[in-house]
C-alpha cells in the first residue's frame, strides 16, 4: 500500500472516467470503491477499505505504562507462597535479563486473593473487582512475551514493532490503513493520565509516515487540542471573517497557479474551523447523565481523571475517531508494590469496567477493540531498594511472561489464552509475542498484517516488522 499520490490519483481517476465513458458509467464508482477510495480521496484521511471486512472499526488501546504486575492482577501463582524466600532455580535464573535486581533475588509471593468471575470463571485479583465483572467479555492473555526489558525500548517495540525508534506507531498505521470516519476530529487521538511516559510523543508518532497520521493529544488542561481556541479576545465572528478573507485570497491564487495543493489547504482550514466547535463539544461532559457519571466514577476525586479519559474515549468512538491511545503512568512498581499497585487499581479499575459496559450497552463494543496492558511484566522475584522496609519491596522488569487483555471487536471474550509455569516465570502454553498481538489487532480491523506496508528507505515496512502471527484462538 502506498501513500495516495494525489497527482497520480487524479490521473488515474481521469483515466477511469474516460474509460468508463467508453464502457458505460457503471464501472467508475466500483473501480474507485475497489481501491478503497471514495470521491473525496484527495483527502489522505478519507475512509479506506481494509483487506477484508474487519469486525473492529475502532481501537481503544489502554496503555498502562511501566508494566503492571501480572502475578498480582491476572495470573494467580499460589506456588510463589511455597517457594517464598528461595532463589530461582539456576535453570530459570540463567535466562533472566534484569534491570536492577540480581539473579539470586528471592521469590516474592503475592498477597492478593484471586477468585473466578462470570460464567467463564476467569480468575482476577481482588485489586480489580470491576474489571473482573466484565470477565465474560474479556480475552485474558497470560502468555505475553516481548524482547525488551527497559521501558522506552519496550514501548517502542509494542507500538512500532521495533526497539529502534523512528518507525510509525500502531495508531498511525491504523489511520494510514483505514482513514478516519470523523469529519471534524483527528483520526488518532491520545489521552494521557498520571505522569508522563518513557516513550512520550514517540508512542504516538507517525515515524516516516506523513504527519497527518500522527496522534493528536487531547489535552487535560487548557485547549483540548493544541491551538484550538481563538487567540484571547478574538470572537468567533472575527475568526470567521478572517478565514473568509484568507479563503478568498487563496482562491485567487489557486486560479492563478493551478496548484490543487491550495484547494487542500482551503479544505483544511474549513476542517480546522469545524474542529474548533466539535472538540469543545466533545470535551464538554456536562451532557452526560448522572447514572453514567456514577458508573465511571466521574465525580469521585480518586477516579475522576481516568474516568474523564474513559468517557472521552467512548465519545471519540461515537464520533468516528479511529484509534484512541490512552496512556496511564506509571505502573512501574520497583518499590512499594502493594501500596502503589493498589493506588493505580483504585484510580482505574472502575472507569475501565464502566467503559466496557457502556460501550456494550450502546452496541459499540462489537465494533470497538479494547486492549489493556503494559510494555512487559514483572518478576516473580523481589526487588529490594531499602532493606530496612519490607513494605518497600517491589518487582523488577520481566519480558518473558506477562498478561494483557482484550475485549470487543473481533475478540472472543470469556477465555484465557496461554499459561505460565508455576512461578509465572516462563510461558508454557500458547506464547503470544508482541508482534503476534499486533498482527491480531490488525486482523480484527480487517488487515493482513504482512500486507499493510509502506515503502521507505527501499523497503516495505510494516507494524510487525518481519514477524507476527495472528492468534486465532483470540478471535470471535
Amino acid at each position, binding site marked *: 500500500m502506498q501513500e495516495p499520490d494525489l*497527482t497520480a490519483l487524479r490521473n488515474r481517476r481521469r483515466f477511469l472516467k474516460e474509460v468508463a465513458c467508453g464502457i458505460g458509467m457503471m464501472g467508475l464508482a466500483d473501480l474507485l470503491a475497489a481501491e478503497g477510495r471514495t470521491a473525496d480521496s484527495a483527502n489522505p484521511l478519507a475512509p479506506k477499505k481494509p483487506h477484508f471486512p474487519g469486525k473492529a472499526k475502532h481501537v481503544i488501546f489502554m496503555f498502562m505504562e511501566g508494566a503492571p504486575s501480572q502475578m498480582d492482577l491476572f495470573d494467580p501463582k499460589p506456588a510463589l507462597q511455597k517457594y517464598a524466600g528461595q532463589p530461582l532455580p539456576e535453570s530459570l535464573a540463567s535466562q533472566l535479563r534484569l534491570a536492577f535486581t540480581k539473579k539470586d533475588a528471592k521469590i516474592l509471593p503475592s498477597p492478593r486473593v484471586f477468585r473466578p468471575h462470570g460464567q467463564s470463571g476467569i480468575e482476577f485479583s481482588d485489586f480489580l473487582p470491576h474489571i473482573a465483572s466484565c470477565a465474560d467479555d474479556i480475552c485474558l492473555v497470560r502468555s505475553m512475551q516481548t524482547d525488551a526489558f527497559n521501558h522506552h525500548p519496550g514501548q517502542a517495540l509494542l507500538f512500532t514493532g521495533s526497539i529502534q525508534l*523512528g518507525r510509525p506507531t500502531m495508531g498511525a498505521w491504523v489511520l494510514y490503513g483505514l482513514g478516519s470516519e470523523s469529519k471534524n476530529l483527528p483520526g488518532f487521538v491520545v489521552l494521557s493520565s498520571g505522569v508522563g511516559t518513557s516513550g512520550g*510523543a514517540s508512542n504516538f508518532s507517525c515515524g516516516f509516515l506523513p504527519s497527518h497520521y500522527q496522534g493528536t493529544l487531547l489535552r487535560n488542561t*487548557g485547549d483540548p487540542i493544541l491551538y484550538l481556541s481563538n487567540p484571547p*479576545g478574538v470572537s468567533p465572528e472575527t475568526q470567521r471573517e478572517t478565514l473568509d478573507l484568507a479563503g478568498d*485570497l487563496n482562491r485567487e491564487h489557486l486560479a492563478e*497557479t493551478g496548484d490543487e495543493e491550495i484547494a487542500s489547504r482551503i479544505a483544511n482550514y474549513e476542517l480546522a474551523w469545524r474542529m474548533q466547535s466539535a472538540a469543545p463539544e466533545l470535551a464538554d461532559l456536562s451532557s452526560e447523565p448522572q447514572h453514567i457519571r456514577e458508573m465511571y466514577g466521574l465525580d469521585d476525586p480518586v477516579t475522576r481523571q481516568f474516568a474523564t479519559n474513559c468517557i472521552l474515549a467512548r465519545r471519540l468512538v461515537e464520533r468516528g475517531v479511529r484509534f484512541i491511545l490512552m496512556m496511564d503512568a506509571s505502573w512501574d512498581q520497583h518499590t512499594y508494590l502493594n501500596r502503589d499497585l493498589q493506588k493505580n487499581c483504585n484510580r482505574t479499575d472502575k472507569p475501565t469496567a464502566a467503559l466496557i459496559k457502556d460501550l456494550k450497552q450502546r452496541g459499540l463494543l462489537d465494533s470497538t477493540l479494547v486492549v489493556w496492558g503494559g510494555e512487559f511484566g514483572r518478576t516473580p522475584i523481589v526487588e529490594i531498594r531499602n*532493606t*530496612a522496609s519490607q513494605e518497600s519491596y517491589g518487582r523488577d522488569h520481566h519480558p518473558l511472561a506477562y498478561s494483557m487483555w482484550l475485549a470487543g471487536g473481533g475478540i472472543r471474550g470469556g477465555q484465557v489464552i496461554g499459561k505460565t509455569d508455576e512461578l509465572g516465570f516462563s510461558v508454557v502454553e500458547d506464547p503470544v509475542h508482541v508482534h503476534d498481538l499486533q498482527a491480531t489487532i490488525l486482523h480484527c480491523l480487517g488487515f493482513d498484517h504482512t500486507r499493510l506496508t509502506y515503502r521507505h528507505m*527501499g523497503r516495505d515496512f510494516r507494524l510487525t516488522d518481519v514477524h507476527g502471527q495472528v492468534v486465532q484462538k483470540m478471535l470471535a
Partner: protein
Amino acid sequence: MRGVAGLYLLCTSSLVLLGQTAPDFRRDVEPLLAKRCTPCHNANLSQNGVRFDDREAALAGGYSGPVIVPGKPEESKIIQRVTSTKNGFRMPPAGPPLTPAEIAVLRAWIQNGAEWPQDPKKQQPSAEPATPAQTHWSFRPVVRPPLPNVTLRSWVRNPIDRFVLARLEREGIAPSPEASKTVLLRRLTLDLTGLPPTPEEVQAFLSDSRPDAYEQAVERLLASPHYAEQRARAWLDVARYGDSDGLEKDLVRPWAWRWRQWVIEAFHRDMPFDQFTIEQLAGDLLPGATLEQRIATGFHRNSLTNREGGTDPDESRFEQLVNRTNTTATAWLGLTAGCAQCHDHKYDPLKQKEYYQLFAFFHRSEEANIDAPLPGEYGPWMRRRPEYLEKRAALIREFDVEALQEEWEEKIRWTMDNPGKDPDWDFAVSNSRPMLDRFEYLLRKGKKNRTEKENEAVFYWFVRNPGPLKPDRDIDKIRCLAEFRRRLEKLDAEYPRLSEAMTMIELDPPPQTYIALKGDFRARGLPVEPDVPAFLPPLPKDAPRNRLTLARWLVSRENPLTPRVVVNRIWQEFFGTGLVKTSEDFGTQGEPPSHPELLDWLASEFREQGWSVKHIVRLIVTSSTYRQSSHVRRDLKDKDPENRLLARQNRLRLQAENIRDAALAASGLLNTQVGGPSVRPPQPKGVAELGYANSVKWVEDEGPARYRRGMYILYQRTAPYPMLVNFDAPDSFTSCARRRRSNSPLQALNLLNDPVFFEAAQALAMRVIREAKPEERIDRAFLLTLGRLPTGRERERMERFLQEHGAKLAGRAGEAASLLPLAPEHAAWTSAARALMNLEEFITRE
C-alpha cells in the same frame, strides 16, 4: 530417540540410510540442499554467511562458525538446526520441517565425511550473470558526460540547462517562461537563506536594471550568514540533530549546539565537502587536531543515549553504533545499510558481514566531552582557577570528602565485582551506570589514573549521588555531604566555568568487533575487522583501519556514491525533489535518476571544483531551469504529473522552521542572531509534561531569545516543540534525507491560534500602520508577507475587508483592544495580518 529413528529408517527400506553406506552427494544430498537450503544460502543471498551452493563456502561455514563438521553430525550446526523443535531456530524457517528420512540422509552424509565432489562445471567458469554490484548505475564510477546538443540555445544559461533542455526537447516539451522578478527574488531568498526578502530588497531588485541584477542578488545572498544557517538545517536533518538524549528521561544536552555552530561556520566559509566529511567523522584523528576539528566529531554524538536505570550498557552502546553506522551509510553512501544489521541485504549487494565491518570503525571509538572554551572564556578561567582549586581543596578537607569518596568508590567497585550481595549498592550501581558516561570504566580506572576531567566528573557525580550510605551508620556523613554540596555549589557559582563540546575519541587498544547474529548484540558471531563493502572500491592497502581512513575513502576519487548522493540532496533543496527522488536510497530499490547524465555531471563538477557546495548551489540557482515559473501546466498533467522532467519549477511548502522564520521576519519580530545555544520559545503547558515522569522541563526564554529562528528551538526529542512536529520536522531519532510536506487541519489551527503567530500578526499590523501611509498600507502588507504587490482584485478584497470588518470592530471595543492593544482603532489590521499570514502563498515558495 535414536532408536525410534533407526526403526523408522529400516522401514524406509533404503539401505543408504542404515548409515553403513554413505549417501551419494549428487544423488541424495545435493537435491535436498537445493530444494530446502540454497534458496536462502547461496552466492547472492547468504543468510548468516552460510552457503550451500558451493563446496568451499559450505565447509567454511557462516558467521557463527562451521555448520558442517565432517564425521560429526551431532556437532554440525546444520543437524542441530534441522532437528530442532523450536520455532524460529529450526531450519528451514518456512514450509514443513525436513522429514526424518531427509534428516537421516544429511546425518549419514556428514557421518561418512561429508564428501562433496568438486563441481565439474566449476572448472571452466561460465559467464555468470552480472550482479547488481557490477551493473547498478550508482555503484559505477562517476564519468563526466559530454554536454548534449540542444536546439533552443538561447534558453541555456549553464550546463544544467543543456541536460534538462535536451531531455525536454526529446519529449517535445517547451520549458516554462521565467518567473516574474518578484517571484524570483522571494524564491531565491527563501531557498538560499530561509527568510523572505524585505520590501527594501524587493524594491532594490525591481529597480536594478543591470543585466546581471539576478546574479548580483545571488552573490549577496550566498555571502549572507543566513545562507549558512539554511544549508546547516538541511545537514542537521541528515545528522539527526537533537538537543536531548532521546530516550526516557531524555536529558537535555547543553552542549549539542557546539557542533551545530561548527556546521553553520563551515557552510559560511564554504568548507570543501571532503574536509567537511573528514572533520566530522574523524577530526580527532587528524594530526595536531584543533579544538574546532574535535568539535566537528560531534556529528556522531547526535545518536541517542538511554539513561534508564538498569539499562544494559552493552545493549545501549550497540544501539548507538547501529545508529552511527546507518547514519553514515545514509548521509554519504545513500545506502539503506540498516537492512544488513540482521541479515544480508535482500536487494543491494551488502552482506551482513560487511555491515559489521563498517560498524567496526565506530566500535573503536568512544564518546568524550571536552573543555571547549568560547572566545573570551579561557582568560578569566585561567586567571581564577588556582584560587578556585585552592578554595575547593580546603572545602574538601574541611568536610573530609576525599576519604568519603574513596570509601564510596571502593564500595562501588566491590559491588560491581559482587553483584547481588547488597541490594542497596546494587541499585546505586545500576542507576549510576547509564547516568554517568563510562561509569564502570572510570570507577575501575581509579582516581590516580584518571585524567583531571575524568576526576571532576566522578567527583561531582559522587557529591550529588552518594548512594546508600547506611542511614544508621553514616547519617552524619550524609548530613555533612548535604552541607558540603551547598557550599560547593555556592563556590562554583562564584567562579567562571568553561563551555564544553561533545566529541568522539579513538579507543586504545581497539576492541574486537563481532558479527551480531540476526542483529542481536548478545549472539556473537565471527570476529571482523573494519573494512568497506566489497562492491565499492577498496581502502588503500596500508592505511590504518580507523575512522580517518573511512572518511578519506568516502570522499576519495574512486568512491562513486558520495558526490552523487550529496549533489542530489543539494538539488532537492532547490526543486523539492532530488534527481534521484529516493535521496536516502541509491540502491537497487531506490528510484533511478530522472536525469542520469546531469547527476553525474554535477557529481563530477562538485569534485573537480574542490567539493565546493556554494559552487553547486550557484550553478543551480543561476540556471534557467531553476528560474522557470512554477505555475502548474495543464499540458503536462498527464505527460509528467510529478514534474520530473522539470518543464517548470515546483511550488514548495516552506519547512517548519522557515514558516516560523517567515512570520517573525514579516512582522519585524525576528532576532537574526546567528548561532549560539538553543532556545525555548513559549509553548503551551502540557507539552513538555508528556515526557517521562515530568523529567522534561520547558523553561521559557525571556527577551530576545523568544524570537530566534526556528532552527534554534531546543529539540526535545520525546516532547518536541509542537509547531515543528505539525509541519513535518523529522523526529531526529534516525537520519532523515528528505522531509515530507503534509497539509493538515492541525497546521491551520497552529498558524491561526498559536500565540507566537498571533503576536506576529499583531506586530505586523503595527508595523504596517507605522511604516506606511493609509493608502499604501495594503501594498506594504503584501510586500512584507508575500514579497509582491497585490493584484487589483486582491486589493479590492482587502479594502472591503478592512472597511467592513473595521466597522464591526468599532462596535466591539473590547475585542478591538484584544486584537491590537496599542492601536485599537486599527484592530482590523490584526485580522488582515492574520489572514495574510495564513495564506497558502505565505508558507509556500513559488
